[in-house]
């Protein structure tokens, strides 16, 4: 930050001449996002709250689509998505912390760098290939399914539980990536200080460890939630329609030959999703800023 302000003070007059030109360099980016991001979003929001009469062509504002997106199967799919995201974020968050703690406390630099590289790679491994890897492994004729007779045990990949297991494959590494720097921030000196003043391990975690980690933990949970909530490709390639998810409902409504009203419900569902994801990000960003204090 200081590096940008210093020359400004030093070359005050020169900067004024240069100012407008540098400002122009941001214009393509801002125009592009305005056009290619703003217009589709605006169109979506507009379509979600208006209705055009096919006969007269008149458009009027209505809350009908939003209301319908919060009813019946659509509401079910929103709830299903939120449930799946919350469950996977919780389980993935806890397991991610445990694994990250195991990696961070082991004093092997090699294990650490390998685990973090692997996490970086696995966290980016969503989508279609992941779905197919799991179909080949624990799908109906998957290798492990055949070997371990999972079907007899009531296992079904194409279900809520199945999706949870698949989502955890990229959510756990994501949590490891997010939380490892925070766990690093827990200095051994703090634990030693707590120990030498007579604190038990439990007291250390309750009064020092968890308060320090809390923003990162919450931030990680929220990030995982958002990632799971927005995921579509994995679920589409895996379950098709057997699990009610809002992304799958939107895809159905968009790709099927449905009535215009239905299409606008898809837009309304998209708006619902953005509101939920925006809420989630509004929680995440300040938390991330707060936890950044402990990273150095």
């Amino acid at each position, binding site marked *: 930050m200081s590096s940008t302000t210093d020359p400004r003070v030093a070359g005050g007059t020169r900067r004024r001449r240069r100012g407008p030109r540098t400002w122009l360099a941001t214009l393509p980016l801002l125009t592009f996002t305005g056009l290619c991001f703003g217009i589709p979003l605006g169109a979506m929001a507009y379509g979600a709250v208006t209705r055009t009469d096919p006969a007269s062509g008149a458009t009027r504002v209505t809350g009908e689509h939003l209301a319908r997106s919060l009813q019946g199967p659509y509401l079910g799919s929103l709830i299903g998505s939120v449930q799946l995201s919350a469950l996977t974020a919780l389980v993935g968050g806890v397991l991610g912390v445990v694994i990250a703690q195991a990696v961070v406390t082991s004093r092997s630099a090699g294990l650490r*760098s390998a685990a973090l590289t692997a996490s970086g790679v696995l966290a980016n491994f969503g989508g279609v290939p992941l779905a197919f890897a799991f179909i*080949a492994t624990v799908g109906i004729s998957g290798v492990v399914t055949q070997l371990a007779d999972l079907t007899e045990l009531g296992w079904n990949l194409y279900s809520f539980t199945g999706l949870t297991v698949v989502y955890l494959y990229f959510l756990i590494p994501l949590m490891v990536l997010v939380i490892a720097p925070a766990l690093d921030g827990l200095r051994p000196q703090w634990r030693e200080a707590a120990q030498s003043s007579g604190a038990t391990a439990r007291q250390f975690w309750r009064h020092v460890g968890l308060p320090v980690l809390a923003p990162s933990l919450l931030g990680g949970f929220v990030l995982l939630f958002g990632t799971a909530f927005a995921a579509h490709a994995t679920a589409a390639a895996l379950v098709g329609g057997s699990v009610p998810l809002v992304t799958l409902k939107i895809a159905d409504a968009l790709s099927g030959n449905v009535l215009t009203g239905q299409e606008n419900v898809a837009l309304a569902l998209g708006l619902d999703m953005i509101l939920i994801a925006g809420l989630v990000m509004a929680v995440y960003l300040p938390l991330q800023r707060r936890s950044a204090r402990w990273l150095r």
Partner: protein
Amino acid sequence: MAAMTPTTRYSDGARDTGEPETGAPARTPARRPRRPRPTIWRGAVLALAGAYFLVPLVASFVFTVHVPGHGITFEAYTELLSADGFTESLLLSLGLAAATIALSLLLAVPALVAVRIGSPRLRPVVEVMCMLPLVVPPIALVTGITTVLRWGPEHLSRTPLYQTFIAVQNEEFPVVLVLAYTVLALPFVYRSLDAGLRAVDVPTLVEAARSCGASWPHVVLRVLLPNLRASLAGAAFLTLALVLGEFTIASLLGFQPFAVWIVSISGAQARMSVAVSILSLLITWLLLIALSRAGTTPSTAAAAPATTSRKEP
């Protein structure tokens, strides 16, 4: 850094065989004799995690090469090149990725450099604009894009804009996908470039180059960009991985790049779709591993693929 090669191998072996239980205690007590218990706990956690993350990979490889009743065959891989649509969809994806990388860098680099050297007040605006796509799930963006694309035939059929709407939806090279992918890639490009610019004292470099009489294009091309090489490469790799794996937008807009093609053959040729999935994973992983090493010294970056690729089945 010097310890990278042997230690990576150590932990790779550890993931396969559950070695940390035997390997780690031998190492740690030498330095720290007091904590034997957490080591067992740690070994168990890492072994379980290793199993969870390795089993699907190994099992999918077995799935592709082992045909029940026929034994081991590599047909799923050998028949790939002649498969219908494989080359076309892969080339389409690569072309889209190249265009997306070019466009996103062309947009982001000037803006970020400008914000650094002359317009710090625009910085929050640029940051918010670049980060906003993170809040919008791709599927929500698609609903907006389809709505906009429908305007073409509905409202604009008598204006010259109509031709533009047709052109961006060209089957051969859907520009609309490039635009959408650039939006999706902006947060990653921004973060990568911002980190790179943070590491360089841009104003000083620019002042120095300018007072030596360098022209503006010269400053950007010969002074700034070489310093940003690692983060430019990072941004490009992330974008490439994103475009190669993207499914939602392309499938809902009715185009068939790589990820959509994999799904389309899965019904008739399950083995091949899994084989392609493994291959695309391998490619993405190699890219990302190369990226994660891009910031380190050239020698380790060159050695990285050799030491890490053995992890794959």
